[in-house]
């Protein structure tokens, strides 16, 4: 392995100063993905800034009723936190659907958002991958791609984002809190991850040296009926073939707002804006759900071996919408 410098930071400022936006610096959280990628040779950092001890491990309510989860909160702790369980159950569910108990005990909130695709071509230095090595080609497009994207992929890249947590955050209209050397900003989770386009090597909108300090869960989606459903090859410890997070606001048998995000279908959590608009202001019904979800998924461009994902995603979304709508949904 390549030798690297290890720096342990105790404050956000210390961390961002140590990183300094260098191309070969990496922040180290739980290490459940970065260390694997270092072993594979996909990541070869010269400097690791360990941010796992930063004072960002709290889940707290802010004066405006929103909830802030610090970047170093472990996935297990975030899933179990009473504020999350009571107000944002979809987030708890999504976290617990991810990885394994051991991994969740170590993985952090910030690191979960920044994990890389598990595309096998990305992980294998002996194969072409435009994400890992721009310009080398995509081994997956004509190769083994059952698990790959059906929405928003590009000629250069068909990878999916592997996170479950991020799908729930996208549906909750959560924001990512970032600290860079030039200051602090927030971004909606839905705009944090990119589509691959012609730069598949760039996963997110994060600027060089910027550090995720936390995620903000808005008051607006607190307490709304919500659910997460994931389909996978085995009952635990498998990435989503497809998943869906739904936050549904129904009043007087009218859909005030539906928030729907898909996982496992695209390079980022896929917020189903078409479906949401189609449902808004209408009466919840199985037929309305079906039409709305179909409208969203009509944009899908499945590959040779993954057209099943479209049907799977539709089934999951309709099922979750129906269950959340409960008796309000007429069949």
């Amino acid at each position, binding site marked *: 392995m390549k030798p690297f410098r290890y720096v342990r930071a105790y404050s956000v400022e210390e961390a961002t100063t140590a990183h300094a936006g260098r191309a070969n610096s990496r922040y180290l959280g739980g290490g459940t993905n970065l260390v694997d990628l270092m072993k594979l040779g996909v990541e070869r950092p010269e400097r690791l800034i360990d941010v796992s001890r930063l004072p960002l491990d709290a889940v707290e309510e802010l004066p405006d009723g929103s909830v802030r989860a610090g970047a170093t909160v472990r996935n297990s702790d975030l899933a179990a936190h009473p504020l999350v369980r009571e107000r944002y159950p979809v987030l708890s569910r999504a976290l617990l659907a991810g990885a394994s108990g051991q991994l969740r005990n170590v993985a952090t909130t910030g690191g979960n958002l920044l994990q890389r695709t598990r595309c*096998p071509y990305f992980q294998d230095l*002996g194969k072409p991958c435009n994400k890992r090595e721009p310009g080398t080609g995509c081994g997956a497009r*004509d*190769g083994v791609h059952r698990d790959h994207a059906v929405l928003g992929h590009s000629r250069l890249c068909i990878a999916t984002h592997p996170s479950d947590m991020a799908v729930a955050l996208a549906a909750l209209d959560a924001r990512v809190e970032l600290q860079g050397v030039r200051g602090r900003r927030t971004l909606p989770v839905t705009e944090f991850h990119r589509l691959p386009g012609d730069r598949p090597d760039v996963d997110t909108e994060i600027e060089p040296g910027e550090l995720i300090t936390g995620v903000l869960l808005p008051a607006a989606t607190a307490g709304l009926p919500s659910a997460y459903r994931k389909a*996978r090859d*085995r009952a635990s410890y498998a990435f989503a*073939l497809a998943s869906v997070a739904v936050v549904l606001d129904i009043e007087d048998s009218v859909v005030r707002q539906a928030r729907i995000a898909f996982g496992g279908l695209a390079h980022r959590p896929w917020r189903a804006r078409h479906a949401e608009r189609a449902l808004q202001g209408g009466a919840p019904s199985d037929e309305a759900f079906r039409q709305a979800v179909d409208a969203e998924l009509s944009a899908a461009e499945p590959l040779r071996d993954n057209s099943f994902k479209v049907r799977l995603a539709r089934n999951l979304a309709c099922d979750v919408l129906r269950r959340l709508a409960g008796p309000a949904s007429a069949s």
Partner: protein
Amino acid sequence: MPDTASAVGAPAGRREGPQKVAGAARYAAEHTPEGCAYAWPVPATVARGTVASVDTTAALEVSGVIEVLTHLNAPRLEEPDDATLAVLQDARVPHRGWYVALVVADTLEAAREGAAAVRVTYDSEPHDVTLKADHPDAHVPEDEDGTSGEHTRGDAEDAFAAAPARVDVSYRVPPLHNHPMEPHAATAHWQDGRLTAHDSSQGATTVRDVLAGLFALPEEQVTVVSEHVGGGFGSKGTPRPHVVLAAMAARMTERPVKLVLPRRHLPAVVGHRSPTLHRVRLGAKEDGTLTSVIHEVTAHTSRVKEFVETAAAATRVMYPSPHARTTHRVVPLDVPSPSWMRAPGEAPGMYALESAMDELAVNLGIDPIELRLRNDTRTEPDSSKPFSSRHLAECLREGARLFGWSERDPRPRSRSEGPVLVGSGVASATYPVVVAPSRASAHAYPDGSFVVRVNATDIGTGARTVLAQVAADALRVPLESVRTDIGSSDLPDAPLAGGSSGTASWGWAVHEACTRLASRLAGQQGQQLPPEGVGATADTEGTADADSDYARHAFGAHFAEVGVDTVSGEVRVRRLLGVYAAGRILNSRTARSQFIGAMTMGLGMALTEGSTMDAAFGDFTEADLAAYHVPAHADVPAIEAHWIDEDDPHLNPMGSKGIGEIGIVGTAAAIGNALHHATGRRLRELPLTPDRVLTGGL
């Protein structure tokens, strides 16, 4: 001696259990001789060709790198029987992942960095890695072992054409990987011309013999130790390249060398279960009596050696029919070499046969258990030999009772719980009785203790424990007074832990040595034993491997209940139950562990396991345990193993049959049959993942 006669059969706990739990049991990679160096291999990145050049300059400049072995400078080996062991001997690349260099360094980190810095260029050639039943190179192999070729009885085609009830179906089982928890590892050390290797192996005697041959040494100059082994499932049944590489590197660098294969290399270098394409034709009378059975299997092999997944072999054992043809065809491709994986042949073969039997039962409207009972037999169909014992019918009936089969509504899609369709299925199981000659010694000491020595291997099954049980009964002494020394080639020679044969083979020799010792001790009654003790030896050559007039096989029945989620296409097993007739069960606790372990592996074969050969690159895409899905705990539900006591005098002195593999045989068929019962749909390709279930027309 009232309480000593019952050591065999008792649920004795594994003797090394506390050591393993405490982390004190040392595996092959946990031996670090002074001055030990570390090795990291370099796999080929083309699927076919030759190495054109190797530039080791950068690798040798990495701090700590001692040496880079390539085909140009590696020690020359004698030609092995198994060509996969001829590592770094020539420039040929027979498949992607074949090792083309080995970096040795002071530290693991430096070896790894050095391996990344080795620059290899290739003259690559077009490759073919795609298995097809109509592949022009498909051929029936030489039937050297009496198993791997074609067998016929009567005129199977005509009888099939004339049968009133017919099933003609094709099944596909994907490549499967052994993936033992402990990856393949070896630490090799040369001292004064003697080679000592700690190897993760299922049989250290064979490793010793092969290393002695490769390095042209007398066997006494080689010691191979496999004290604790973290599973193998066949992939450590014979020596694998890692131990040869470690020994070569140690000789070349004059340092002890440790080599642990990275998990991601295992699919390419330690063997796998070949994918199998099956066509099964069953012809039957209206009452279900089989008149013709045709089972044709196509498997792949590598360019390095011919290995045949003998998936039609069990079909020669199961059901009588006047006409039958069982054929293996193998296609040499530019793929990694396949090899043994738990129940090689039987596991994929019985998936196909027992699925087809279910299809026949459904077509005829006969209960699938009844169909099997109507085709039971006392003589082995292919050999016409009488079975030494065959309690298949009893297993089916007892399983039906325990499982509650009589409450089953046979109509497909007859039971649902909300969006989940529920169904149940059954399949038979069988595995041959295999036994090989072994040596053993037994000693009695003045302090009242006994020591049994045999180079058996404990791959996690409890071999130490069960051999002590066999010894205690033969000596008629308490179990606690017997120590078992196993796991070193300096002990009496013994065959491998494989083919469900270990306990029978070693136990036979242990039993014989202990029986001799007991009679010698009986002749010395009352006399004080000398300080060095009194001993006896045994060698079962000529007896254990003698031909039998009987066909000897274990049988069993598997029952599965599955839930199929019509929303997600996810299939989850809810209950799994096995009943086995496998001779006398020697340790009820460790036997149960073996049965449910193999059933779990069968569950994985049915629902989650399988890899994909990448046609463009020529390797298995799913290379680690995140991508190759062995069942997680959440996949394994209520799982039960039961057995029927068999009293079979034609086996061995213990009356036992092997139990390590039968649990994986037929399990996938029971689960697939349950899926059909739940949904009314027949899926004929494993594993039964959501994509297949959803597109199979739920």
